[in-house]
């Protein structure tokens, strides 16, 4: 198992993407699947930065190699909020960190993309924050 801890700030998700790229290469994932895993992790890190209301502004990623699959968890500490409050949180986060002018209302693709790119995706609200668990199977 590998773990990485990132500060939430511009472009740090790329550091995580390069870490997982190397782990996926060691596991001999196909290049196409390596791209998908990297992209899903980037979206998960962006979501954590934008929505988690974390005060320490850190993202924790774990990469567990389990036989023929790679299990990735992306967590951040912060208030675990009921969905309705979380929506407000998301809206206010968007004001500072959201989409560009002229593209309002076009967000909401993060989770959709992650679900398309990975095989299993579970979004959990855990006690000390939120956690996304996503799995990719090795295709031979």
């Amino acid at each position, binding site marked *: 198992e590998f773990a990485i801890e990132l500060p939430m700030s511009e472009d740090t998700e790329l550091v995580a993407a390069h870490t997982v790229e190397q782990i996926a290469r060691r596991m001999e994932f196909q290049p196409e699947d390596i791209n998908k895993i990297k992209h899903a992790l980037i979206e998960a890190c962006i979501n954590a930065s934008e929505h988690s209301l974390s005060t320490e502004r850190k993202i924790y990623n774990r990469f567990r190699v389990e036989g023929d699959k790679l299990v990735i968890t992306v967590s951040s500490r912060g208030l675990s909020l009921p969905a309705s409050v979380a929506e407000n949180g998301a809206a206010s986060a968007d004001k500072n960190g959201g*989409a560009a002018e002229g593209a309002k209302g076009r*967000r909401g693709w993060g989770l959709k993309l992650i679900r398309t790119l990975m095989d299993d995706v579970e979004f959990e609200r855990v006690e000390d924050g939120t956690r996304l668990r996503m799995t990719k199977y090795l295709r031979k």
Partner: protein
Amino acid sequence: MSEPLTEPSGGQAVGEVAVVYAGDYVNKMSGQRIERECLIRIERGCRALVINFRDTELVNSIGVSILLGVIDAAERRGARVAFSNVSVHTLKLFELLGLTRLVVLADSEEAALATLEDFSATPPGH
């Protein structure tokens, strides 16, 4: 992350086609740079834009939403947008999120320019 470069640099005559290069990672910051470059070209009267993704490894979802804004803005001014040199992974992403229906797709910048120049040669309203 590298700056997107515009070619030819400097002023653009009305009716010309401009090329803007996307960087290696199209996120919020570099997406906004592309947006600025494109809006300047459109203001100056460009009838068509090529965004060249030859250096692009990844476009994140914020980058995609900004690209949609560019396509919108171009449409409102009667300018057309082409994407060239899009990688397989990014092409699938653009298909999934509905961008491919809104732009001209070309394998190379030359092919994109050839298609757009036909368009740009037609005077507005015809």
